[in-house]
């Protein structure tokens, strides 16, 4: 199976977060906990479901990733953009 990680958006501010190796919802994908087996994926999915029910996060998803020299890389462009932010140089507060 493809490697998988758990991602969601934080309830309070909607910011994209990833479930990390320390069991926290992190704003960075870099330290995300990777499921390498069906059992591990099921366990992550259950953690996600519980976090949703506990009103910590929403839009919870297991996503397919690969490990590269640069770190964890989602397979879908959508998830890469979620991890890295908009690909455009948008106006920011000076």
């Amino acid at each position: 199976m493809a490697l998988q990680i758990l991602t969601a958006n934080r309830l309070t501010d909607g910011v994209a977060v990833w479930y990390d190796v320390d069991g926290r919802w992190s704003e960075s994908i870099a330290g995300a906990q990777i499921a390498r087996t069906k059992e591990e994926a099921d366990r992550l999915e259950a953690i996600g479901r519980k976090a949703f029910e506990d009103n910590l996060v929403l839009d919870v998803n297991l996503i397919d990733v690969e490990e590269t020299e640069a770190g964890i890389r989602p397979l879908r462009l959508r998830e890469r953009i979620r991890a890295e932010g908009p690909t455009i140089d948008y106006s920011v507060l000076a």
Partner: protein
Amino acid sequence: MYRYDEFDHAFVAGRVAQFRDQVERRLSGEISEDAFRPLRLMNGVYLQLHAYMLRIAIPYGTLNAKQMRMLAHIARKYDRGYGHFTTRQNIQFNWPKLEDTPAIMEELATVEMHAIQTSGNCIRNVTADHFAGAAADEAADPRPYAEILRQWSSVHPEFSFLPRKFKIAVTGAERDRAAIQVHDIGLHLRKNDKGELGFDVYVGGGQGRTPMVGKKIRDFLPEEDLLSYVTAIMRVYNLYGRRDNKYKARIKILVHETGVEKLSAEIEEEFRHLRDSELKLPEEDVARIRAFFAAPALPERPEGWANLAAWKKADPDFARWVDQNVKPHKHPDYGMVTISLKPIGGIPGDASHQQMDLIADLAEEYAFDELRISHEQNVILPHVALADLEAIYRALKPANLATANSDLITDIIACPGLDYCALANARSIPVAQEISKRFGSAERQAEIGELKIKISGCINACGHHHVGHIGLLGVEKKGAELYQITLGGSADNETSIGEIIGRGFEPEKVTDAVETVVNTYLGLRLSPQETFLEAYRRVGPQPFKDALYGATAEAA
């Protein structure tokens, strides 16, 4: 413009208090996301890829300087310093925190704004010609009727849970600039020989995955029957519109599947019951609303004619901007100014808080405190004396707001696409940026002439690609982005849906493909006066297919 009365203030304040309570209960865990989601959507709060998104209504695209400054303030205080003006004349903020949204609503209410009915299966913001009340070709200002429809449709108990969302657009000008034929209901306000006002009524237009051009079901509906007739349409739709399949739930599908004659007969029958009801518009009520939209008293400014000629002669860039971005006003000493939110290589429709503040200052100083947002994602100063154009241009230029490209190839409509949107399959903004850069030279744009490119990042078509002269639709194919090109769409009086020209193009090839289409047009047009759309309608798709895929290739 319309000013809230006590009832409006109380209603919006009540709604803010209600929403504050809902957010508090959500954050405390008292209510689940499943229960909260419809509540937040009723108040314009979506969840996108990176954050929540707040869509604020700008009724029929009209706002004043104070309201624009409030939008700048919200961008600064609660967001990342910018906002995105949309194809429905609204503004979206991309990074608000849920916990801040009640405070944002409260601040908005102080300037008579809100985010109610900017989402959900209800009647959305009623849109109108962005030159309303100023255009030389106008029979009457459509905004009083848009306002009447807004009041009537706000939390209308019968129409708050429709089969699907519902969009109404109104124009009062001969030339349709509000894309009324691609709305659920399109209203074309006209004046007859006796000086009476009435509406041509179109139903069942729309874009999305099943694009349809609206069908005219009424010529010159009397003004007083506006609400009775629209109610009749809504009732027939509410009764027969499909609720089993969201992709078949819009009124366009009902019109298509039922047939326009049969559906029209049902609407007329319902209207027969309603026309003498309390929905009949009393003339004094219409007059009262119309008074809010009275044009400002425009003093004679004849000195502008000579000044303008001299300034244009002295500065070719200014001349180009005037020729492209200033359109004739009812009053000969005035013009309607389009402030382009499409700088070359920029993000279509985005404005920074500094730009919003500057635009507000200019509206106050030179434009009678009036602003409009166009569905083409630009800002309009509707009443500007020709004598003041030079000062406005000098102020806009350093803020990157004086791009002379209104209606030209770089005046691109683009949805937020996969850079922000949870529904998108492909990015729109980077494609728009690259095309804008490729065709950015003023000389080249002038040579090409009027050409509307519209880009959507998914089949929902927020970027209006179906009605682009050149439309681009981003799709996901085998995990990568691919862009389908459609040609020959338009959203004017002769609305047409663009035709898919062939197989799609990869992101790195799509700008070349657009250039091939443009060069093909330049090579075959009969004269520089023949626009892209006219040329396409004359020759059809084949020369473009040949140029893109080779003369022998079969189009996919």
